[in-house]
């Protein structure tokens, strides 16, 4: 065989290997399911935002659990359609599943995490109302999300749960910034650089935070409204969390801090750390499968399908 032939074979196999690796990720495989429900798509709820409802095939039950899943995207990108697989998976289990969009920030028009959390607070009653209009009376809910969506889910469950139209029973999230304590944000150098910390936390909180506020710890009051861990009490709902130990984007220290708080308050929770993975939980497939099994266990325990 000629050298050219070997080279062509090498390059072809190399490219096929890349395509296979990117196409058959655990995240896609883990939520694969047979689903024959219905979608009510793009229901407007305010501020130009919309949600999708994934309705279970069985419409004969008296009432249903609702699971709201919030998309990732660094608070600036993403869409509910990115989560179609997990939403179908949840609906196939017998829940009404809702993917909810929220106002995204950009350089020209920044939006604070606090404002985004108010979008979710605004959306949930409308999601419940729409589900009921479609024949699915809601008896309780769980809220969940990945990364930025996880932060918003935690805020809804831990900060806003007392004002919800239906009881929040649990929350699960993946790689979400669970708090904004500068000592946890070492990967961005915020533990040492007060100016950088102020620069990052200010727009997220939607409040002016100065380097002096950072140095004096006065900033903790300003970021409280976006720090889920600051809202943990003995009455908080159960929390299931997954974090990558080597995450460059959202330090797992924020999840550990939340887990410590939950432990201290006696709140049921599970903190699952992926030892070889980063923000994509991409290198620990065995643990990912265990995490997905744990989501099912939490749902069966705290929001059982009746």
């Amino acid at each position, binding site marked *: 065989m000629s050298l050219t032939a070997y080279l062509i*074979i090498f390059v072809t196999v190399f*490219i096929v290997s890349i395509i296979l690796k990117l196409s058959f990720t655990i995240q896609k495989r883990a939520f694969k399911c047979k689903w024959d429900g219905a979608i009510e798509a793009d229901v407007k709820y305010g501020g130009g935002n919309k949600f999708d409802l994934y309705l279970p095939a069985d419409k004969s039950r008296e009432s249903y659990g609702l699971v709201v899943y919030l998309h990732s995207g660094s608070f600036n990108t993403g869409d509910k359609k990115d989560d179609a697989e997990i939403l179908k998976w949840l609906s196939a289990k017998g829940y009404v599943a809702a993917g909810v969009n929220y106002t995204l920030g950009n350089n020209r028009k920044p939006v604070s995490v606090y404002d985004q959390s108010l979008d979710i607070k605004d959306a949930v009653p409308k999601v419940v109302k729409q589900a009921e209009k479609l024949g699915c009376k809601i008896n309780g809910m769980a809220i969940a999300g990945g990364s930025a969506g996880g932060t918003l889910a935690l805020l809804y469950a831990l900060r806003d749960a007392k004002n919800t139209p239906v009881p929040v029973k649990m929350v699960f999230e993946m790689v979400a910034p669970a708090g904004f304590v500068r000592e946890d944000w070492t990967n961005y150098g915020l533990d040492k650089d007060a100016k950088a910390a102020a620069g990052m936390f200010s727009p997220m909180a939607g409040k002016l935070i100065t380097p002096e506020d950072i140095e004096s710890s006065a900033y903790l009051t300003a970021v409280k409204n976006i720090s889920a861990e600051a809202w943990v009490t003995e009455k908080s709902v159960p929390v299931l969390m997954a974090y990558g130990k080597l995450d460059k984007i959202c330090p797992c220290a924020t999840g550990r801090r939340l887990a410590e708080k939950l432990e201290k308050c006696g709140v049921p929770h599970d903190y699952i750390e992926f030892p070889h993975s980063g923000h994509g939980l991409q290198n620990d497939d065995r643990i990912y499968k265990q995490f997905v099994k744990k989501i099912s266990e939490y749902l069966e325990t705290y929001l059982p399908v009746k």
Partner: protein
Amino acid sequence: MTTGEIIALVIIVIVAFLGGRLGVRYYLNRLLGGSLFGGNIL
């Protein structure tokens, strides 16, 4: 094909396949964080 060519072909396919997977893992780790080895077998 000779035996040597077959062996060479097998080695090339294995190296190319593993190289592709390792390359993706390396690239994703650069973006998201993660270790090159451990956890998944590539």
